[in-house]
């Protein structure tokens, strides 16, 4: 019995030691390395030190980018150097990031390459860009893997770079998003929006010409933005801030259908030119404009389909003027065909066709249905065409 217990505890101790070894230096509360299906291999690929970088373990590096302001730095870019300091050649097969916001490039001799072989002593450049727009405030960590060729179905991880940053929003919106809800076509609507900015973005707003003051712009002609009153200096949570009120107007002539867009914050460069305020900060806008014309479904999702064959989907239109409709697609791969009008019917069928010549890849378009009175209904169309058999 005693031997039994001794064996039990000894084995548990051994297991605990093994676990510590494979866990590296991860601390309590810290993210464990997300290394699924990734086999570490003995390699001599190292990331050359730069300020802010620490070595976590043999193949893992951590870079602290500090506090990053999304207005001043909407796109964080950093360059690192990879060196083969071993005695064998090392092949870098690809780079992988943990977030869709990461853009990674591998450079040899200043030229971008998808993969490369590094002989002993050779170096390659790793260029990282992180798009920060839309990120939540506070600390975050992004991962970047340098992978070798696959072996036995497993990815060989040559190096892992963890990038720590704390995101700061020097511009905030109240509300954070605009929802017009359901708006009757022809009536229009207006919503208030307030932008709050760090006071140091504009040291003396009273002296600034209108062209330098913060603006919101819309890519949708049905949405207009008006500035309401002057830029004001206010106190928010013990901090001095600047506040600008806006009115967001939905045009009475807006197309019927689902509203989905953004208002972009486009404050121009400061007067001294030192601070680029052109940042990808935006306010999402949603809602539905409903009118005499209605479509079910409101958006046509074809899904993912093999290319080369025409594919059709039906949309049921309802309107008080079903007999005098016209419909057209906004792309050469998109056809819209209305069924013959039946005076006694309450609905009319619209056939949306992806043509056989539609290109491969993701497709986004729209069909516009117009009544004789000029009312328009937009029906977005989303699809992806793949090679047959994919």
């Amino acid at each position, binding site marked *: 019995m005693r031997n039994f217990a001794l064996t039990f505890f000894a*084995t548990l101790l051994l297991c605990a030691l093994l676990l510590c070894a494979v866990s590296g230096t991860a601390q309590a509360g810290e993210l464990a390395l997300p290394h699924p299906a990734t086999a570490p291999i003995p390699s001599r690929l190292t990331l050359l030190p730069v300020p802010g970088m620490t070595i976590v373990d043999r193949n893992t590096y951590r870079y602290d980018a500090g506090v990053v302001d999304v207005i001043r730095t909407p796109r964080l870019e950093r360059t690192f150097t990879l060196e083969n300091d071993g005695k064998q050649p090392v092949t870098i097969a690809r780079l992988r990031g943990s977030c869709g916001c990461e853009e990674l490039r591998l450079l040899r001799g200043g030229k971008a390459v998808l993969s490369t072989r590094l002989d002993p002593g050779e170096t390659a450049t790793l260029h990282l860009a992180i798009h920060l727009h839309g990120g939540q405030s506070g600390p975050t960590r992004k991962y970047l893997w340098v992978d070798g060729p696959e072996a036995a179905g497993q990815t060989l991880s040559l190096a892992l770079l963890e990038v720590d940053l704390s995101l700061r929003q020097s511009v905030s919106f109240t509300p954070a*998003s605009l929802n017009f809800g359901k708006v009757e076509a022809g009536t229009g609507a207006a919503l208030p929006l307030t932008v709050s900015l760090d006071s140091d973005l504009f040291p003396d707003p009273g002296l600034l010409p209108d062209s330098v003051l913060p603006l919101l712009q819309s890519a949708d002609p049905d949405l207009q933005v008006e500035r309401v009153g002057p830029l004001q200096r206010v106190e928010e949570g013990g901090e001095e801030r600047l506040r600008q009120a806006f009115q967001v107007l939905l045009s009475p002539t807006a197309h019927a259908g689902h509203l989905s867009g953004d208002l972009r914050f486009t404050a121009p460069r400061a007067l001294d030119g030192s601070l680029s305020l052109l940042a990808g900060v935006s306010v999402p806008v949603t809602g539905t404009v409903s009118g005499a014309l209605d479509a079910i479904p409101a958006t046509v*999702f074809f899904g993912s389909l093999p290319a080369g064959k025409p594919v059709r989907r039906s949309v049921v239109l309802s309107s008080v003027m079903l007999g005098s409709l016209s419909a057209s697609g906004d792309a050469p791969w998109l056809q819209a065909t209305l069924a013959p009008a039946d005076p006694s019917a309450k609905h009319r069928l619209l056939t949306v066709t992806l043509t056989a010549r539609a290109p491969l890849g993701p497709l986004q378009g729209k069909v516009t249905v117009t009544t004789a009175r000029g009312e328009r209904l937009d029906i*977005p169309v989303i699809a992806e065409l793949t090679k047959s058999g994919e």
Partner: protein
Amino acid sequence: MKRLAFVALCLLVAFGTSPVLAANDLPRTGSRVPAIILPDVAGHPRRLTEFKNRPLVLFFFCGCPPCHACARLWADVQQAGEISRGRSVTGPQTVAVFLGDAEAARRFASETGLDPAQTLLLTDPSDRTGQRFGVIQCPRVFVLDAGGRLTYTNSENNSGTDSPRLSAAALVSRTLTAWRHLPTAPASKVSAARMVP
């Protein structure tokens, strides 16, 4: 022999509860996914077992621009009635796990227009659940059948071939296609297999 068996048992005890995942532990196409117990945005613990016998689309979002684009398009899918079409199941059939706190999750859902009636919004600030699912890139999606088996995911690590780097239109199109391919039997006729242990 007894000693050998005992050592094996100890190894099982130690590594069976280990937070370090081997590749084989990750959910793969055709296999069941790990259990989830995460707080919703009101702080109440929620489990995937609530979706027993119902197909499900499970997203992991971090709040980056590609996550926003994907969620906004999925909100359009929800609004177009694509999720419930041909199915008798009511209630949310989308679970969105947000890799952040409740406030950020609420903001993300509001900004992207995810339908609260069709979406269960969970928070995973520590990313621990995401790691158990092999979520190393975002946005990530897992389409589960009524038996809790994975039928589609956009990851190279879960025996799918797609990359999370797909554009939002492509990712949503593939997710919707996988969803449409799931059996449309009413919930009462679906096999009584439990979704997760």
